[in-house]
């Protein structure tokens, strides 16, 4: 077997394992009520505790974005339109994936390390031996919590980003708040908002199942746990930008369909 064959086989095996684990976790979502305590704990760790960093991120991204766009628009005397472009970009792109990145960095890596440590410390085996399915006990609560909190954080982050853009427009670009908001309203329609939420839901599921799958496959002590955490970040980021492209392409088709072009 050549080197590339080997890499491809491993990638396919990994993808297969991840998918099976995700489906198993979804299959166990009948136990959501039973595992509500675990889910709430995870929602707190994943969601509530991520609000400050996600907000800070999005605030500054909104500010910088408004400044950059403002520089260009000023050449045409169209600084008023900053809100429109900013909202469009925030809702459809920046919000979902910047929050996705924050969650991968802050949550995905630690999730992989936590589950990896459980694997290395035989805790996963202990669960199996007690006939407690790790997909139900460990994976499901995390993926459920992440796929709820991902979109919630995206909404919060996007709003904060829009406010950030507004502050800059007002203080540095000389746009009045009422102008900013009037054009901002035109930046996104319902479809855009749904699409943004769909994106962040998909990103949450993808990065959550990658983190859990890599965690479950950890071997080799502390070094292995470190490796699991790192691989999770790299793979999740790659998949998120890839899925983002797919979803945006799909969005374009839907949008054309809705507006009667297709």
């Amino acid at each position, binding site marked *: 077997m050549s080197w590339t064959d080997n890499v491809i086989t491993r990638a396919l095996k990994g993808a297969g394992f991840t998918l099976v684990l995700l489906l198993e976790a979804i299959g166990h979502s009948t136990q959501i009520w039973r595992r509500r305590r675990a889910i709430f*704990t995870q929602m707190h760790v994943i969601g509530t505790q991520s609000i400050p960093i996600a907000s800070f991120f999005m605030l500054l991204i909104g500010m910088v974005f408004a400044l950059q766009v403002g520089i260009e628009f000023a050449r045409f005397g169209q600084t008023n339109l900053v809100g429109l472009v900013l909202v469009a970009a925030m809702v459809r792109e920046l919000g979902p994936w910047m929050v996705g990145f924050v969650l991968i960095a802050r949550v995905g890596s630690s999730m992989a390390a*936590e589950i990896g*440590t*459980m694997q290395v*410390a*035989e*805790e996963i*085996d*202990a*669960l*199996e*031996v*007690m*006939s*407690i399915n790790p997909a139900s006990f460990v994976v499901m609560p995390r993926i459920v919590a992440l796929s709820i909190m991902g979109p919630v954080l995206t909404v919060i982050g996007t709003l904060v980003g829009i406010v950030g853009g507004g502050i800059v427009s007002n203080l540095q670009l000389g746009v009045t708040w009422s102008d900013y908001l009037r054009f901002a309203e035109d930046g996104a329609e319902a479809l855009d908002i749904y699409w943004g939420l769909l994106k962040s839901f998909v990103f949450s599921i993808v990065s959550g199942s990658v983190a859990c799958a890599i965690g479950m496959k950890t*071997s*080799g*002590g502390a*070094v*292995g746990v470190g490796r699991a955490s790192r691989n999770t970040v790299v793979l999740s980021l790659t998949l998120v930008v890839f899925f983002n492209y797919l979803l945006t392409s799909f969005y374009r088709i839907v949008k054309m369909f809705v507006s009667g072009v297709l």
Partner: protein
Amino acid sequence: MSGSPKLAVQFEGVSKVLAGRQILDKLSFDVREGETFVIIGYSGTGKSVTLRHMVGLMAPDEGSIRVENEEITTMSRRELEIMRRKFGVLFQSGALIAWLTLFENVELPLLEHTKMSRKKRAEIVQEKLEIVNLWQDREKYPAEISGGMKKRAGLARALALDPGIVLYDEPTSGLDPVIANEIDKLINRLKREHHMTQIVVTHDMDSAFEIGDRIGMFYKGSMIQIGTPEEIQSSTIPEVQHFITGGREGAISRRANTAVIRGVAPGMLSQRSLEAIESEAPVATAEQGYVLLSEEEAAAAALQPQEETEGPVDTAGPRNATPSLEPEETDA
């Protein structure tokens, strides 16, 4: 032996290759109902792997494994889940769930598999935690307690559903002698009072002789001898003699002993001795046959070739991946 005692576990010709190495090689042995069966053998040779096969965490490449006369190698996942309820397993490090308190850890199997009331569960948890003398620590989290306490809590959890068969993976390693004795006493008490079948992996020979009805010496993938403690003690098989004496002629090993054999067979290795091996210090070569070192000698040997650096010996890397420990053939 008298009549035909009922068998709790039967291994027949079980083989398993892991990462290209033959870990189990036509392994066969029986464990009788109600007995304490002790498996002894060098570190990293496959004793834990044997236990994992017993509960279906690993499937053999070939061979048959029966638990209470039911073949488990062909069971579906669902059947395995039911079969596993016969077992309580104490893992090497306790394997407690980190985000649950000791109380919640012991309660977990009850919560998952029974419809008991909260009060009833609490009673059972109290009973099990009192057995291992940890009731007063029930609100602590695993990270807040010592290794020995984790093991005892792991045992309480293993006993929660009153299993018929209990597996112990090195229950006394890393414990001080007093606690180790307590564990031995507990194992004997569970046999006496609850008639549990117990299978204990250990390389603590004091413990093996104290608790074992029968002892099996695991070597190169199979049992080279199975017998009563007396039979094992007076074994004429060199590998068995060598193991139980810890390499000291004529002496039954005591708890603190350490033997290092480089290039010949893995011994009972302390961390320092392991470092000596991993640092590739010229301790001995296969041609020299058995060369045994005390812990101090091993440490000294480890330092010799790198006196200039004086840094700590690098022990990073997977714990189990110690290829230098692979037994090699010798002309005994």
